[in-house]
């Protein structure tokens, strides 16, 4: 069997990390096509090396741009690739524009689509990721889901249960495989922070960074916390912080450049609390037993709310501060969700080996 694996952005790299060795061991040929949707040489390379990923066979150079520009360019490049290579299936992960582009291009030329992390729903169509998820799932022949609820979401959209396979959460397996030896990285210490005595923050969603009032509320919350905040910040967001009320060099909020995958895991594990708007970090904190506060109106990772590792707050200073206090007071022990374990990749392999057939006539 020969499949092409599409990745486009950092969360995708993480998801294929545990898969590549499993594919190789099972004799599944799985060359990687990197669309280059998120490409900044340093970060992409750090992730590939942190995750020990094979180099992409194809680099499609899609680059940045609006949603339509990214999706359109990735579709065109992937269509050419699929026509030339005609693999047995196209393997897409997550919910980025490259995921959508791959699913559209493949389905129109009759290449079956396999979607890993299928069936997640926030119910919020103002999130571009939600549209990417809805459309990709309709187009997929094999839907590999991370939670039992995901299958219910798919059934409610008319997707046959026989296309769905509950494999578990690949992000969880990646955390389990990479969390050995994290302490030795001493990342927090290198940044002058004491393990267990800082709040780690990541804020990147446009509704939080680009709406001035929301960013100001978030900054105000950070300044009001008792613990120092470590904030790896995207270069795009950095210049917005001053007008949101964060004075340069304020010791209460330490701004650093984005960090690699392993360093980020280490920082999450050693944080007292993580404040985020990222989907992946809601799951990683769950696995690392660090309480999480998610600054969003909704989440597609509802299971982390249900088990108590995560709580939702809106972009409001008081709510965020209260959320952090609640997280600090809460027990750090929760049961891990079903199939968030180290056998997810082998379940994916087993699902592929049962065969991938084009969508039924």
């Amino acid at each position, binding site marked *: 069997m020969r499949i092409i694996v599409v990745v486009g952005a950092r969360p995708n790299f993480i998801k294929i990390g545990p898969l590549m060795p499993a594919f190789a061991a099972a004799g599944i040929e799985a060359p990687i096509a990197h669309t280059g949707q998120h490409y900044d040489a340093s970060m992409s390379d750090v992730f590939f090396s942190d995750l020990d990923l094979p180099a992409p066979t194809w680099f499609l150079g899609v680059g940045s741009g609006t*949603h339509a520009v990214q999706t359109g*360019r990735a579709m*065109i490049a992937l269509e050419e690739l699929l*026509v030339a290579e005609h693999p047995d299936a196209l393997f897409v992960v997550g919910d980025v524009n490259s995921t959508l582009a791959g699913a559209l291009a493949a389905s129109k030329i009759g290449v079956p689509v396999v979607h890993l992390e299928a069936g997640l729903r926030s119910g919020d169509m103002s999130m571009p990721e939600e549209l990417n998820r809805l459309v990709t799932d309709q*187009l997929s022949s094999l839907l590999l889901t991370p939670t039992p609820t995901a299958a219910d979401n798919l059934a409610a959209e*008319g997707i046959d249960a026989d296309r769905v396979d509950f494999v578990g959460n690949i992000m969880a397996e990646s955390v389990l495989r990479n969390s050995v030896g994290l302490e030795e990285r001493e990342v927090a210490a290198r940044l002058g922070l004491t393990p267990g005595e800082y709040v780690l923050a990541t804020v990147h969603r446009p509704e939080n960074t680009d709406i001035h009032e929301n960013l100001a509320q978030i900054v105000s919350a950070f300044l009001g916390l008792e613990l120092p905040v470590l904030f790896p910040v995207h270069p795009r967001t950095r210049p917005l912080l001053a007008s949101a009320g964060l004075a340069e060099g304020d010791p209460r909020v330490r701004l650093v450049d984005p960090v690699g995958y392993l360093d980020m895991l280490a920082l999450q594990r050693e944080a007292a609390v993580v404040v985020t708007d990222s989907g992946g970090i809601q799951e990683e904190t769950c696995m690392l037993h660090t309480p999480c506060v998610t600054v969003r109106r909704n989440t597609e990772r509802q299971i982390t709310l249900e088990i108590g590792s995560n709580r939702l707050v809106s972009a409001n200073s008081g709510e965020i501060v209260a959320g952090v206090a609640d997280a600090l007071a809460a027990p750090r022990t929760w049961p891990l969700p079903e199939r968030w374990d180290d056998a997810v990749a082998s379940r994916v392999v087993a699902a592929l080996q049962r065969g991938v057939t*084009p969508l039924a006539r």
Partner: protein
Amino acid sequence: MRLIVVVGARPHVVKISPLLPELKRAGISVQLAFTGSRESVRRQEDADEEQRAGGIGFYGVKLPQPSWFLDVGTGSYAATAGRAMVAFEDIFVAEHPDAVMVVGDANASLAAAISAVKSGLPVVHLEAGLRCGDMQTPEEINRVLISRVAAVHLTPTEGALENLEDEGIEPERIYFVGSTVAQAVLTYIKELSGFSACGELGLAPAGYVLGSFHRAENLAHAPSLRGIMGGLSRSPLPVLIPDSDGLAEELAGRDITLPATVRLIGAVDYRMMLALERDAAAIITDSSGVQVEACMVRVPCVTVRECSELIPTLTCGANHLVAPDGVLIGAALDAAITQTRTWAEPKRWDRAVSDRVARALRRGITPLS
């Protein structure tokens, strides 16, 4: 309310033409975004007069001047859809209308729907909910996906409404408005009462079968194309085929001979086609629009496909599905030519379709949460 209506394929012109006056009366301002080039719009003989009136002739149907010609051009699926997504995004971000209306199942309709939702605009889908159940056809993929992202679904049949409910679409977002193709027939057929299109071609009314083929599964598939030609060679009446989609090239490329019974003519515009349909003894097609039109002009129809999305045309007795097989098609044509034409028109295929659309839109468009 400001609405941008996407005209992404030739049949869309017919489907939206009955709507526009009604939407205007309802106080809904409409701008058209056409995916073709300015030059691709065939000007009518009375172009001067139309320009004075601010309109333009599309394939024989008069529409207001589009605000945008996207000139998406030709190429692979990804190339054309990708260009269309980018062009639509530019328009939607700049204009920020209250909603975007897309029609049917064209690639451009899906591209526009994706760009609209990504730009934060609700999508209204006209001719929603039709399904053939075959996800190998690009049209079915487009329909299913547009339904997933649309905020308002306007369906031509009751079955389409049920299909959407089965896929988990909230019932309050679905309106069974009827077929605008049917309303267009009722509107335009009156203007054609003195027009004998077949006479101009030397054919007598009820003295010919009208054929129309455009789907890739028939044209680009040699066994199917051979089966269809075998069937047409058995026709008891001459078969007239206006060729708008490259049938002649497909036949030549596959060394398939055109039967002596068949006469190919160039592409015809909507009015000519409608007049030819009205006067035919029977119609043989693979087009969805023609199945509806045949039903409305009361000419029996044979559809060369595995399935039809237009179930009411089958159940009322106007339309018959047949496989691309010479013997089966020959028999189906014999039966169609001699059958009665007394079927009852499908529910809500009437003159009030556009009124129902306007009323649905005036109830407000709630974006997907």
